[in-house]
């Protein structure tokens, strides 16, 4: 198995990446990972893109900026090298750009070189960019979007304005894709009404539907996203290996690239601790060294390539360091994944009572009933 994988990697190291079909390209991307892929094919990528700079407009909604941090933590190539290799002009990124929103007497002043608000307006007017949305979009209270203000605009309006002229939209991180942490069940959830770009939790539509927009959207969930997922998706789009006007075959039913979130495999299949599961070594407490399923690992229900790609420059991942998977790439995150350290089958379903308790009560009642019935019938017989 390992030698097959090595052979496959070797095979993908000698491609003419500009001539291969989409399937081979995606296979190469999946097999090599961003690190190797961009370093091997960097020159070819630059050659392919040298006449076509692509603008990326990166917005931040309701979020923690963790996805930006994760992207900035990319190594070999790092964030700047990747942008350079892919000939990306990052025209707007609130936490990285130098400009600020400057108002005097309530009016915007200066130029786009200094004023972020003016820059964003000009870019939105020009269009022709890939819009990256990090964070969910507030729709509350009562559809105003005022729960989520940036400067003197609602983020809902900023998204509406920029999405209209975008060539494609990449929803980055679980907040932007499905709502994520910002839609955690709580007293204020309905009031805030945070939404994903085109889906909120399991409900399709999201803010795109509210605004009546129809643009190609690629969902890259994760809390945070893996840098590879972002850069390789962008590379595939720029090289035409993903045709944004026809995403059906590339994305799964909830808008994620199948190559990173494989529908035909779960994270559990490739988990480094899988051997313990197969031997029935199921940890009851943390740090026992076995399979983490019984302490809430959601990997058996999760589609992602974390276990193959790994994190932190390909060195480790959640389960490897003893942390059960919390299903952060799934639309159910976090509500359906909580309690994080309790297995799904043991989580409360009916008035907070779990399946095991309900079943134990039912089986216990049946045993008692059987006993009573038997005694009663025998007495009747007498």
């Amino acid at each position, binding site marked *: 198995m390992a030698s097959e994988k090595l052979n496959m990697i070797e095979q993908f190291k000698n491609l003419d990446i500009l001539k291969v079909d989409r399937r081979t390209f995606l296979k190469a991307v999946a097999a090599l990972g961003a690190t190797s892929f961009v370093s091997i094919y960097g020159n070819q990528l630059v050659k392919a893109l040298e006449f076509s700079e692509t603008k990326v407009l990166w917005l931040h909604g309701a979020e923690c900026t963790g996805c930006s941090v994760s992207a900035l933590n990319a190594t070999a190539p790092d964030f700047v090298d990747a942008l350079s290799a892919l000939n990306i002009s990052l025209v707007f990124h609130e936490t990285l750009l130098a400009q600020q929103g400057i108002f005097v007497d309530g009016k915007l002043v200066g130029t786009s070189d200094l004023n972020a608000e003016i820059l964003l307006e000009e870019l939105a007017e020009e269009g022709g960019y890939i819009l990256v949305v990090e964070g969910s979009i507030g729709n509350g209270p009562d559809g105003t979007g005022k729960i989520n203000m940036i400067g003197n605009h609602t983020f809902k309006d900023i998204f509406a304005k920029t999405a209209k002229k975008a060539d494609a939209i990449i929803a980055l991180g679980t907040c932007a894709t499905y709502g994520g942490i910002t839609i955690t069940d709580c007293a204020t959830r309905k009031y805030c009404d945070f939404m994903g770009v085109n889906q909120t939790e399991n409900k399709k539509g999201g803010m795109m539907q509210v605004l009546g927009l129809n643009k190609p959207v690629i969902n890259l969930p994760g809390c945070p996203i893996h840098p590879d997922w972002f850069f390789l998706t962008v590379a595939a789009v720029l090289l035409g290996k993903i045709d944004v006007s026809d995403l059906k075959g590339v994305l799964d039913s909830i808008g994620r690239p199948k190559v990173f979130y494989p529908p035909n495999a*779960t994270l559990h299949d490739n988990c480094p601790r899988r051997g313990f599961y197969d031997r*029935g070594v*199921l940890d009851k407490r943390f740090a026992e060294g076995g399979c983490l399923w019984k302490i809430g690992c959601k990997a058996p229900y999760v589609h992602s390539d974390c276990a193959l790609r790994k994190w932190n420059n390909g060195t480790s991942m959640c389960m490897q360091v003893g942390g059960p998977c919390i299903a952060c790439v799934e639309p159910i995150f976090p*509500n359906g994944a909580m309690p994080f350290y309790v297995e799904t*089958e043991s989580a409360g379903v009916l008035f907070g009572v779990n399946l095991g308790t309900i079943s134990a009560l039912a*089986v216990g009642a049946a045993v008692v009933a059987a006993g009573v019935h038997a005694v009663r*019938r025998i007495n009747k017989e007498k």
Partner: protein
Amino acid sequence: MSSNAQKTKTVERYNWLERWTHTFHAIAMLVLIFTGLVIYFGWDIMTFHNARLLHMIMVPVLILTNWCLVPYGILSHGWQEGGIKGIVRHFYYSYIFNMEDFRRLKGMILNFFGKQEKYPAFTVYNQATGHYKTKLHPMFKIFIVVEGMCIFLIFITGIVLYKVDWAFFGLPIAYWLTTIFGWFSPILNMNGLQFARWLHLALTYFFIFELICHAFILEFDSKVFKYWKSIFIDGKEYLDSPVVEVINEEEHH
């Protein structure tokens, strides 16, 4: 022959095929429940691989008995009773809980609580035709239909658990099933795959519950205890039993 003499006559309640079908069905169910729990709880009783292997062997046994032999039994009995009409009539009277069964069940409950002297007969044998009009305990009629649906559900959830991309002649069955589960799973705040696993476990528990009800409430009764022997060994029916009513009708209506 006098009426009493006729009543003491022994007839066949379960033929050999029904007895073997039931036995294999029971073995398959018990092994599937046990090995399923071994896999789920990680019990040290047997290795994961052996549990999984046994589980996978018993799946076709259960499906063969439940989806092939049981329907064959229904069809063949019904056919003997009168072609297509006989099949429909046999299925309705033998397996569907109807008003008569409701009255019988009500009588049984009243009898249990001492409010009715006579325990209602639930097996009705027609001496004129030589066939049963109805055979099963009314409670079991409810269980048998629910069980059939549960077997179907546990089978399709099992497909997804067995292989998340299982396909049959190129048809992505597991993918379709996961998608369908995904329509219902948000009710429990789960994704499709999560729901499939949860439902598979819930149905396992249901089968344990049903097994106790079926074997120890319905059959753990001095009046019907002999049916244990009948279903597993000799297949005999004693028409003088208090739970059997013998009628003499030329044709069922």
